[in-house]
């Protein structure tokens, strides 16, 4: 079955590429112009001929040719990735990048077969302006900052000195071999060799990431390789430009002055580029302080400004790669704090989409480019020696630099790690891009250089990439288990930092921790004040964010559990809890809560509340909501909401399990549940943990068993009693709801029958929830809806609510009173947004 699907996919890919070939023929015959119209062009020229009668449909290939081809290629490349990913067995030992290149070979072969010439290749311009920036921005934006900056020294040493060494050594050695006669007759001088060496020196971040991400080496090794590859791209480009200038100057005109100028320009270009990046990072951060009003396009600013930083640096002939790298690195923290969580998620996903997409395209096109008879100039000596030198000097460079760095490190880098680091010197598309942009008039052997570069790229990406995993295994390189840190570990890490800083203080020395802390203090007082929203400043504590993530995760598990049992009833419990949360984390969530509330109320009451809604601070959120709904305003919004709730949660569940950047998922729904349930969870945990509530413990037993029988969630199970207890509460609620759904009046279900304990007020409201409509979803919604509406309308009144919320807040223990009003609490959820919001604020101050 799977095979079938795979085959069909391959088929599709081939089909599409077939279409492309067709398109090619069109284009070629068209571009050849005067060679006469073939059968195919007769149609395509149709549109240009004078019309005699009104054409109903015309064939307008030329209008859309370029964008159409681009889009098709994008599609084909991505389909390649899909095919590769579906091949789990092949993927398990073969690096994806290598497979993509091979796909490229095949596609290129098809094009070649159709065209008898190379029609598509990776043009340097497209590569540098349209494919590379987003990848670099992505790596910068997701850079583990702390790790990066704490290793910045080592990374810089490797990136700058290592690269210069590589470029120089490879160039000079090749030149030496050339003089020695190893390559026969070539028109290359020393400068050209150095130029070639410099373009080959770049370790490619794209290739490195692609390989190392699958290997999971330890974090120091990773950041060294990764950081180096990222920064040395910039260095290489700078070096390349310097040598390029030297080549065009010609050997005779180069004197000491020019060389010094070259060195100066090297530093100016790299630091200038980095500064531009930092400047743009500041602009982005400042902007996001105010973009809350245009939340929908908020995320776009990051991309536009990031791209602009790239282009600006390019315009000033500074290092564009470094610029966009530092832009991403510097802005991430402030951007994430300033923007709404939705936008943050949007940025994260969009960033990944762009980066992954163009990475895929780069690899595929590296393959496609190879299928060309023009560029292939074979020179065994030159090619073999280049590969040899590139690898050997990489090893020498890494080992000697690490030896030097190890003298200053408390924990030295081990030999094995150095080996892997050297071996990870994969060359990639940057090298090719630079080679392809060589000037043929000045460098006679351009094609030889391109073909050699391509071979080096294939060799490193495919062969080294292929052997990397076995090597890492065989050498027993320290690896990290790709799991998230546990909360206690994070707390511990944080404590550790403080302890170390304190120890330095006590021992009376100025050390790394002293600097870090000094910077932190400076940052806290000035930079965050300048770049962060005041509300964001409050909420950006590291531990809190962890806690938040953890809670979200729990909430999702909770929901999953609930859905498994077919009920979302527990969603509706504990109004008091979310008020509580709103009070505490005011800014962070209040933007979310009102949104949902207003939505709800809009649907349920069908009251024209637009006047109120216009004054809502999160107007743009509403627009957003409408976007999601596809503008189907006249639908029963209540029904829609339920569908929306349901579907999106389902959709997001598996995204959750995906690895890296999904952690900070910010689904409205999830947040809502999170707010409502976490309090309960902790309450229950606390009370049971402290052994305060024996009553509960007694009631717990049967339910727990019942629950086990129900089949608990497997992936993140909470075998601990309290958790069970908590779920069991939901369970009981469920059963209550089930009864309710079967026709009894649900509203007045006696609150005290289940659970038995009144210690835990947060759980009580769920007994009183009206039957969740989705329970009876099988029946038509419309038939049920009116009655529900009626039910909900009955107790609701704004005054009631206003009085109620603070009560629930402060009088936790007196919930028996509150319980009587639960329908009203229910109403409060659906109440017009304005009062509740106001309520929240009032609570905040009141508390």
């Amino acid at each position, binding site marked *: 079955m799977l095979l079938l699907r795979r085959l069909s996919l391959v088929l599709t890919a081939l089909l599409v590429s077939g279409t492309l070939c067709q398109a090619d023929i069109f284009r070629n015959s068209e571009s050849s112009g005067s060679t006469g119209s073939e059968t195919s062009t007769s149609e395509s020229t149709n549109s240009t001929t004078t019309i005699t009668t009104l054409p109903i449909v015309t064939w307008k290939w030329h209008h859309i040719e370029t964008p159409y081809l681009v889009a098709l290629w994008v599609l084909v490349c991505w389909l390649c990735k899909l095919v590769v990913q579906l091949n789990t067995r092949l993927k398990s030992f073969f690096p994806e990048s290598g497979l993509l290149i091979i796909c490229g070979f095949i596609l290129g072969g098809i094009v070649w077969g159709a065209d008898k010439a190379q029609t598509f290749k990776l043009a340097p311009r497209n590569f540098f302006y349209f494919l590379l920036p987003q990848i670099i921005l992505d790596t910068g934006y997701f850079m583990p900052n702390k790790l990066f900056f704490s290793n910045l020294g080592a990374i810089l040493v490797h990136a700058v000195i290592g690269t210069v060494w590589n470029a120089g050594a490879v160039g000079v050695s090749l030149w030496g071999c050339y003089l020695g006669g190893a390559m026969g007759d070539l028109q290359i001088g020393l400068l050209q060799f150095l130029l070639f060496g410099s373009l080959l020196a770049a370790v490619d971040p794209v290739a490195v990431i692609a390989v190392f991400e699958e290997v999971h080496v330890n974090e120091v090794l990773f950041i060294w390789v990764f950081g180096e590859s990222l920064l040395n791209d910039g260095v290489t480009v700078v070096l390349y430009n310097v040598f390029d200038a030297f080549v065009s100057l010609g050997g005779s005109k180069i004197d000491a002055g020019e060389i010094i100028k070259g060195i100066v320009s090297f530093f100016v270009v790299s630091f200038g580029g980095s500064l531009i990046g930092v400047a743009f990072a500041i602009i982005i951060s400042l902007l996001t302080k105010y973009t809350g009003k245009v939340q929908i396009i908020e995320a776009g600013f990051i991309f536009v400004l990031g791209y602009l930083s790239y282009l600006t640096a390019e315009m000033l002939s500074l290092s564009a790669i470094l610029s966009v790298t530092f832009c991403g690195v510097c802005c991430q923290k402030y951007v994430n704090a300033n923007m709404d969580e939705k936008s943050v998620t949007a940025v994260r996903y969009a960033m990944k989409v762009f980066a992954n997409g163009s990475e895929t395209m780069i690899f595929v096109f590296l393959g496609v480019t190879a299928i060309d008879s023009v560029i292939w100039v074979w020179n065994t000596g030159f090619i073999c020696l280049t590969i040899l030198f590139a690898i050997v000097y990489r090893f020498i460079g890494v080992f000697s630099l690490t030896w030097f760095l190890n003298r200053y490190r408390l924990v030295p880098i081990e030999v094995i790690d150095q080996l892997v680091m050297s071996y990870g010197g994969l060359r990639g598309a940057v090298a090719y891009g630079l080679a392809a942009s060589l000037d043929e008039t000045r460098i006679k052997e351009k094609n030889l250089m391109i073909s050699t570069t391509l071979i080096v790229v294939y060799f490193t990406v495919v062969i080294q990439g292929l052997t990397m995993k076995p090597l890492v295994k065989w050498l027993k390189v320290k690896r990290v288990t790709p799991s998230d840190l546990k909360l206690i570990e994070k*707390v511990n890490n944080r404590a550790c930092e*403080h302890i170390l800083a304190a120890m330095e*203080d006590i021992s009376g020395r100025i050390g790394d921790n002293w600097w870090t802390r000094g910077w932190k203090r400076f940052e806290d007082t000035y930079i965050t004040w300048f770049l962060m929203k005041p509300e964001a400043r409050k909420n950006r504590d590291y531990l809190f964010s962890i806690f938040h993530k953890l809670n979200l995760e729990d909430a999702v598990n909770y929901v999953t559990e609930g859905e498994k049992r077919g009920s979302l009833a527990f969603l509706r419990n504990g109004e008091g809890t979310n008020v509580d949360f709103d009070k505490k984390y005011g800014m962070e969530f209040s933007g979310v809560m009102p949104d949902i509330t207003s939505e709800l109320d809009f649907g349920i009451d069908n009251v024209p509340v637009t006047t109120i809604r216009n004054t809502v601070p999160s107007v743009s959120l509403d627009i957003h909501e409408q976007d999601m709904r596809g503008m189907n305003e006249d639908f029963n919004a209540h029904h829609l909401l339920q569908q929306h709730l349901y579907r999106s949660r389902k959709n997001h569940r598996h995204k959750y399990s995906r690895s890296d950047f999904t952690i900070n998922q910010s689904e409205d729904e999830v947040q809502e549940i999170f707010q409502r349930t976490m309090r309960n969870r902790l309450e229950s*945990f606390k009370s049971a943990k402290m052994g305060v509530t024996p009553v509960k413990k007694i009631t717990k037993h049967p339910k727990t068993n019942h629950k086990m029988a129900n089949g608990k969630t497997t992936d993140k199970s909470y075998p601990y009693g309290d958790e069970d207890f908590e779920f069991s509460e939901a369970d009981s609620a469920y059963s209550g709801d089930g009864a309710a759904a079967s026709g009894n009046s649900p509203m007045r279900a006696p609150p005290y029958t289940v659970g038995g304990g009144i210690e835990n007020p947060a759980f009580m409201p769920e007994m009183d929830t009206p039957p969740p409509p989705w329970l009876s979803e099988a029946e038509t919604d419309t038939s049920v809806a009116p009655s529900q509406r009626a039910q909900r309308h009955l107790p609701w009144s704004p005054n009631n609510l206003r009085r109620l919320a603070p009560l629930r807040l402060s009088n936790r223990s007196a919930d028996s009173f509150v319980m009587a009003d639960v329908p009203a609490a229910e109403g409060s959820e659906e109440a017009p947004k304005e009062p509740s919001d106001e309520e929240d604020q009032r609570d905040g101050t009141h508390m």
Partner: protein
Amino acid sequence: MGAFHSVPDDHEYHILSEKTGFSLEQIGILHNRFKQLSHNSDVLRRNDLHTIPDLACNPIRSQIVEAFFDGRNFRKNCEGPVQEIGFEEFLIVMSYFRPPSVHMTEEQREDIRRHKLRFLFNMHDTDNDGTITLEEYRHVVEELLSRSGSLGRETAKGIADAAMLEVANMSMGRMGPGEVYAGITFEHFLKILKDIEIETRMHIRFLNMDTTTLCK
């Protein structure tokens, strides 16, 4: 510099060096610092450490200072808090933060690891009963968050609770419904933090150069 390099100290330094693993220069520097902190007396009191200005904004200052006056950390058979410590105790506590040597056997590494974690554990376990109870852990988290201002005690509690719940899940497996998790024992503590390479993390660089004059 000359004052503490006097001849009678030299022999003592050698003993201390063997005991703690510090080099003689480092001991000299630390001794200098010790005197500076204790205002040239032989013993150090809590108040001396509390008044270090650089320490003022450290959220868990009190715990750290307490660790210096905790009998369990002296590698002698004494327990419970003490009122004042001499230079030797000061050095011993400091030696928990020595960087690991380059060549270590696996056993040594494990040993160092245990020591360092023990130190951390003792810092958490304030009442010295061998377990970190929820209360104790909460206290630590609260202290940790106390300087960040934005988070109230409630959140600290929440975090501590969630962390504790995790630990309970991990270390006890599936607990019976009536069981109550008493607290983190040292064994659990070791197990939980086994992924953190504490031996490569928990250290500071002790210079062979005197920078005490630079510090307040």
